[in-house]
């Protein structure tokens, strides 16, 4: 079959509000991950490595950083003249002007785009999961099984199953039941939010769903149950391997640490399945005489003179002499000044941690930025572009943002 017969659509419109200040200025898929990447790199690279050539990215919330990051799609080899990457925001037409109301409505509003591409199959992806998956294999199953829709599923531990949408299948892999967050799950196959539909089937379902005033216009809640009740052929495609939804501060931190603790779990070194990203154009990183770096990952443009342990550093991070960074994630351009100590901190773009600051899990107490709703287990998060005062003390479980200059935050600047 021709590559144009399948179109991938990545849902990248959500705010990702549980990531707090990390998504204040950018959509969740644009959040940095794993030293070199943004979260959406995984979905885009999977598309490229699977041989897909037409990818629509549905954006809505703070799309600028994401649009600029994706640009012409060249880093993922998706800058095709025919096909390639399309950014799909909501728009006005002579009949209507609406923001996207749910995952299904977002696709519905882009029916015309999809029709222009004239595909046989549509692959629906989420822009905020970390995994490597060959969608061509899933498509093969979809075609062989003559499915109306195929849903990727993943075995989760039984004790967690009630947090997911659970698929009950028969022996042939056909889905017989779907339960959203069941109290007593009868299976541990969780939906990964990855769907392949025959386009004519999906188009009809979307139109129908759009008419339904009671619908939330959501794939999991509305479209899939409706198709099941209409006895359509829905097939489960089993995925094994690393998969993580990085929707919370805790899971984002864990997924980053996974790269250090079990790098083989999602092998980033596999040259047959590279994860592409937009390159920052910086020189190789430099480790000075006074530095000590263990159990850590880092990338171009870093400059380390201090101590870095079990941490993930993004490009152009500076750790000055005498600073100690442990179990932390430092996003592009962060500077940790002399004598500062960070423990389980996530520091966003360009923030400067002043001299002798003490922050994170090993600092007891509370402060105005304490936020146990989003931050647990001692993780402290810093907004982008902050200057933290020299000598400031920031306890664990904080979400530090700019409100006004105070004893912790000195200033905020554009990065």
């Amino acid at each position, binding site marked *: 079959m021709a590559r144009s017969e399948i179109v991938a659509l990545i849902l990248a419109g959500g705010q990702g509000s549980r990531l707090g200040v990390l998504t204040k200025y950018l959509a969740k898929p644009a959040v940095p991950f794993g030293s070199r990447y943004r979260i959406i790199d995984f979905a885009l690279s999977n598309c490229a490595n699977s041989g897909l050539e037409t990818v629509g990215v549905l954006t809505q919330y703070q799309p600028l950083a994401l649009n600029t990051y994706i640009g012409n799609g060249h880093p993922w080899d998706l800058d095709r003249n025919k096909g390639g990457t399309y950014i799909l925001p909501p728009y006005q037409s002579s009949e209507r002007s609406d923001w996207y109301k749910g995952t299904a409505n977002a696709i519905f509003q882009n029916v015309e785009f999809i029709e222009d591409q004239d595909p046989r199959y549509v692959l629906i992806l989420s822009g905020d999961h970390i995994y490597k998956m060959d969608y061509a294999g899933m498509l093969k199953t979809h075609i062989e099984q003559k499915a109306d829709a195929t849903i990727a599923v993943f075995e989760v531990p039984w004790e967690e199953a009630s947090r997911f949408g659970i698929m009950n299948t028969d022996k042939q892999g056909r889905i017989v039941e779907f339960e959203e967050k069941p109290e007593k799950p009868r299976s541990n196959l969780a939906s990964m939010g990855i769907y392949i539909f025959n386009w004519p089937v999906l188009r009809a379902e979307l139109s129908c769903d759009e008419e339904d005033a009671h619908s939330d216009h959501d794939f999991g809640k509305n479209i899939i149950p409706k198709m099941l009740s209409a006895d359509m052929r829905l097939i489960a495609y089993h995925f094994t391997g690393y998969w993580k939804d990085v929707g919370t501060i805790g899971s984002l931190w864990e997924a980053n640490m996974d790269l250090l603790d079990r790098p083989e779990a999602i092998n980033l070194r596999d040259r047959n399945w590279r994860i592409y990203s937009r390159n920052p154009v910086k020189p*190789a*990183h430099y480790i000075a005489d006074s530095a000590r770096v263990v159990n850590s990952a880092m990338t171009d443009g870093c400059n380390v003179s201090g101590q870095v342990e079990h941490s993930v550093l993004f490009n152009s991070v500076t750790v000055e002499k005498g600073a100690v960074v442990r179990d932390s994630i430092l996003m592009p351009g962060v500077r940790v000044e002399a004598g500062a100590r960070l423990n389980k901190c996530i520091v966003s773009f360009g923030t400067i941690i002043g001299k002798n600051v003490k922050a994170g899990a090993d600092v007891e107490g509370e402060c105005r930025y304490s936020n146990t709703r989003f931050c647990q287990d001692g993780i402290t998060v810093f907004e982008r572009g902050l200057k933290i005062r020299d000598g400031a003390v920031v306890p664990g479980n904080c979400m530090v943002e700019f409100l006004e200059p105070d004893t912790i935050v000195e200033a905020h600047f554009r990065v």
Partner: protein
Amino acid sequence: MFINAMGLILADHKRIQLGELSRPRALAAIPFAGRYRIIDFMLSNMVNSGITCVGVLAQQKYKSLMDHLGTGSSWDLDRKKQGLSLLPPYINSLNLDSSDNDNLSGLLDFIRANRFRNVVIANSNVIFNATLNDYVSRHEDSGADISVLFNRDGFKSGPPAIMLGMDRKGSIKDVMINPHKPVSNRRSAGVVILSREILIDLLNDNAARGDSDFSVESLLRRYMELRICGIEYKGTLLRINDIPTYFSSTMSLLEEKTRRELFWAGLPVYTKVKDEAPALYGPLNQVSNSFISDGCVINGSLADSMVFRGVTISAHAKVSNSIIMQDVYISEGVELDHVILDKNCVIRPGIKLVGQKDFPVVIGKGAIV
């Protein structure tokens, strides 16, 4: 408004050979500074100046250069019009300009086809980080036929040294190659600026004379007939003339001033994107005063070294004062001091290699030691 110039980079230099490093590739394609090839610096200077049309004149062994440059997209030179062109030595039975002078005629076609007012011609062995706009403006304002960048390095960094004698107005009055008794410390930086018309005249001239030598040197030798002016380049500039200068230039990047001026002065140095994973440091390493690139896995000890992309340094290996190129694998217990390992070398467990500052041990591409 914008710079009105095209670029021309000479990928080879008949006086410069880097031994084992030159064996598989042109001078311009020799890996340098962890992530780069030598040519990346001049190419980035041109791109950062707003030049959108660059020809790379290659004489031999240009396959790795071709692979490196690709469509030019890493330098944003994959354009519909102009962009990046590799000009190989080329036999074209139709070419009426100079039937036995193929290389020049291909170059002439290229320069004729791209209508920019000026041409910047550069050797690829010179490494600096600056835009050229100001120099092109100064060339145009001066009314000189040719302008040449020089600095006051004198004979430092060894031959070939093209020394320039200049009068008080800045005109070149003498050009000496590797002189015994230099009259001046002004040394050509291997970058000249001239108008497209003059270049076409000179090339036609050469072709008519059957002279196929096209080099910065041969242009400068015209100082008797043409008005050639020197413009001083005052920033940090590295010259790669042989293995010792390659080694010392690399090591100078470990000094903060050089590092800052070449990499952190605001102008990006573009290179081919490789999409390697981030570098990973294991629990046992000890690293100091070194550059490390993406894709490396560092478990051993490393000091005063330059490590390219995708290198593995196993536990209990000791590497110092060395240059380790792409995808080298260093096994457990290896000891290296003053060594240059070319791409894809494998050093087996327990091997020890020790060179000297002026005589580093050089191991060719793909060797298994």
